[in-house]
């Protein structure tokens, strides 16, 4: 499908060991991974280079993951966010999806499955981008 190298991923999780290990493994799969330990830092990063896909922890000290999600979708509606969490909580998951999360995954997620999800999210983003471009080119009202 796609060349992994095209996909940039931002990993936001306060648990350092988990984050570092996952970032290394995703990097090895050819994804361009950057990491942040909290929501504020993640939002600050959106200013310059918006990633294609954000992997976002829900329970973090400081800004809550759901709030970070809301702000990401506000600032960068095309960036896809996958919530990755250890908390199986139905209400949180639905709130997350309502705020535009691509998916809500419960840790531990097998790496293969996570990489596929990142691809799916990236594909959605690319399709959206192409659609917007085409609509503009056609001069048709969106």
């Amino acid at each position, binding site marked *: 499908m796609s060349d992994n190298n095209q996909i940039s991923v931002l990993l936001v999780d306060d648990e350092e060991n988990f984050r570092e290990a996952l970032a290394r493994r995703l990097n090895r799969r050819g994804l361009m991974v950057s990491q942040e330990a909290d929501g504020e830092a993640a939002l600050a990063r959106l200013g310059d280079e918006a990633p294609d896909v954000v992997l976002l922890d829900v*329970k973090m000290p400081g800004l809550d993951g759901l709030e970070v999600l809301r702000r990401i979708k506000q600032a960068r509606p095309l960036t896809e966010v996958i919530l990755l969490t250890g908390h*199986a909580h139905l209400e949180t998951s639905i709130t997350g*999806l309502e705020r535009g999360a691509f*998916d809500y995954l*419960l840790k531990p997620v097998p790496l293969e499955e996570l990489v*596929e999800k990142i691809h799916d999210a990236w594909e959605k983003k690319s399709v959206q981008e192409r*659609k917007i471009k085409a609509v503009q080119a056609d001069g048709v009202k969106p």
Partner: protein
Amino acid sequence: MAALLEKIKRLLGREQEPVVEQAGLAEEFKARYLSFRQLLAANNKALELMSELEAAAGGGRVFGMSFLRSRTTALGVSVFQMTDLLGRLAPGKYPVLAPRLKQIQSQLESIAAPAEAGGGGELVLPLKAIDQSRAEEAGAKMANLGEMTNRLGLKVPPGFVVTAAAWRLLLSGGGLVQEISRRQQAADLENAAELFTLSSQLRQLIVDAPTPPELSEALAKAYAELATEAGGEVRVSLRSSALGEDSAEASFAGQYSTQLNVHPEFLEQTYKEVAASFYSPQAMHYRLVRGLRDDQLAMAVGCLAMVGGVSGGVAYTVSPLDPADRRVHLTAAWGLPRMVVDGEAAGDHFVVSREEPLTVVAHSVEDKQSELVCHDDEGVCRLELTGERATQPCLSQEQALEVARAALKLEEYYGGPQDVEWAYDRQQRLVMLQCRPLRPAEAKAAAPAPQGEPGGPEALIHGGVTASPGAGAGAIHWVQRDSDALTFPPGAVLALPRPAPRWAALVGKAAAVVSARGGAAGHLATVCREYGVPALFGLGPELEVLQQGSEVTVDAGARAVYAGRLDELLQRPNKRPAFMNGSPVHRLLSRSLELISPLTLLDPDSNEFQPDNARTLHDITRFCHEKSVKEMFSFGKEHHFPQRSSKQLFYKVPMQWWVLNLDDGFTQEIRGKHVRLEEIACLPMLAVWEGMVAIPWAGPPAAGGRGLASVLFEATANPSLTTGVKTRYAQRNYFMVAKHFMNLQSRFGFHFCAVEALAGERRRENYISFSFKGGAADAARRLGRVRFIGGIMDELGFRVESTEDNLNARLERNEQEATLEALKAVGYLLMHTRQLDIIMGNPRSVAHYQDKIRADLELIRGGQAPGQKASQPS
């Protein structure tokens, strides 16, 4: 631009339609197709989760709250995604759907909501203030102890209870509850290595948690009062007293920790250690297999003045092994009763008749090697026994009768057999330490002892004490330390130097348990009886002849261990009790499933097929799937977008088949009315087609086109056949295709058939779903056909479900190649099951066609017999 298009048109050289600039529409369609694919993926995930939950409810596996929470959450996510994606395909068309889903979700959530953690309450209660009515605060063990002294006047050590409220207070600090639940989420507790790791992490979290200041104060104050009462600085014992522990339904024997002879300086720390044993491996495993909810339980801890006993032990008011034996059984050791409770020593045994006047009717005195006594400063130590005391009985006849009398008093008071722990203090006064209901082993006919039978097998070891009756066979696995436990293979025989309670987590997986030391009175013996696992203890150093990995048969009833597997001894397999059934977690699952799995929206053509009639999550998924397929079909037509309208299939002649290209299902863009078979790039469709045409239909001609597939190959439309059919949609056979995806809908009169398949690179996502409904024949024949097709699909490895005359069959998670192979068989069945209506009344021809179909399928699938199921998901 226009010139370029002209050129393309000339190159294509096909029947022409005006090409308009429709890049936006094309991209819009691409986006829709992506939404559709995501919806299908969510649908598959939801169906998988539902069947996983149903399988769990059906029994045969063990699951806990974290399983239930994670699966229902994931299911909620998938179903929500489906409604959301349908909303993208048909904006504003089904406004009722989302609120309806919300209602079902909130009903589900209210069922599974964590138990109210009752805030407030006393942190500490003096034992004097406690009876059964305070069990919710003090835990069962301490409530019993309070009752014994306050109601029955039996002597118990003075003390207090650190209550369930204190436990909740401790856990509420620093988000401990969330952290614990998060870590449990990720662990597989059936895996011993993960269980032990998680247990250690959770206990560490609790021990490390800061003690809330109000709890520290309450502990210090309660200890000061105890010291005053006991007349000076006292050492204490800290005993777990979990809520729900020691009830008749769940014994929790020895799963939690007890700390003896604790110095007041370490009171706070030790309290946390004992409380943390809520997460001991054996306790976690026990709650898991019993379906108990962590959030409905709590840990209270009893803090009692230490009884430096002369002797102590356990009393059972009936035999724990033989329900017919109603005499009181005492086991006693020198020093602290822990020797007996932990199964370290078999102990002296006394049997007392229950009829007045009580008499000791039998006793045996063991050669005692050591005793456990309080260390001067803190803790306990083991002293070697020499001289007279080693061989002397550690109870006098009078003492044995006194203990028996107290135990019977408790039995009478509680109205059932009891398991009582007691001690004689330095002043030779009887002190009761705890009591709980005793559940005797199921009555089992003793196996005939093959010993001495001519030609019978020779036992490797003979002797010991039956701790739990029955026989079991497996490979010997020695467990002396935690690392041995991590590698314990299910079905092995657990071999132990001593039956320590910490190995309880392994009992449920063992074929049998043997131990060099211990007797029938220890905690581990209780656990073995509860699990129905045969156990033979006190075998002595002889046990060491059993080599790691060697296969043995343990006949615990006949007290013998044999080499190899002796099936004649295993004739009456121990029926493992189905703990999960009726447990709190199981009940919760059953109630949740009522809102999850029944399918009530069955017929898409009926007026009832509406979102507000959806009763379950399954209904919602069914509705979304059905409507999304319709939406995909209608797009090209509604938007005057010929490339994404359906094309009539041209195979030698125009066929009654229409094909809609979703994305890359054709080898090239087709603008005309027809698509040729060789222009189809869809692998699943080509596989189905291959199956359809592989073997010509040899049956009798379908009179007047009866039977589903009779239309499939009608070269030209016969308008007379379609009269009376409701909609244009219903008259045709459709394929929706992409390179790896296909959705086939075929409908004629009352017959309806749908096949959906994905056969791509991701094995995990591949599937075939086949559904079939209706038929014009009478009900009996229709059902007969559903059963017939279901039987064949089952042989092909499909998971088959049928309700009334609906048949649904799924095959999932196979490699692309295997999925396509199975699709060929599906194509064949589509063609060749058309005669089934006619023959269903005649068993002989049913058998004939069954054989023919099996033979044909073997041919089509390149010699792979249908009986050989496609590879199953790993």
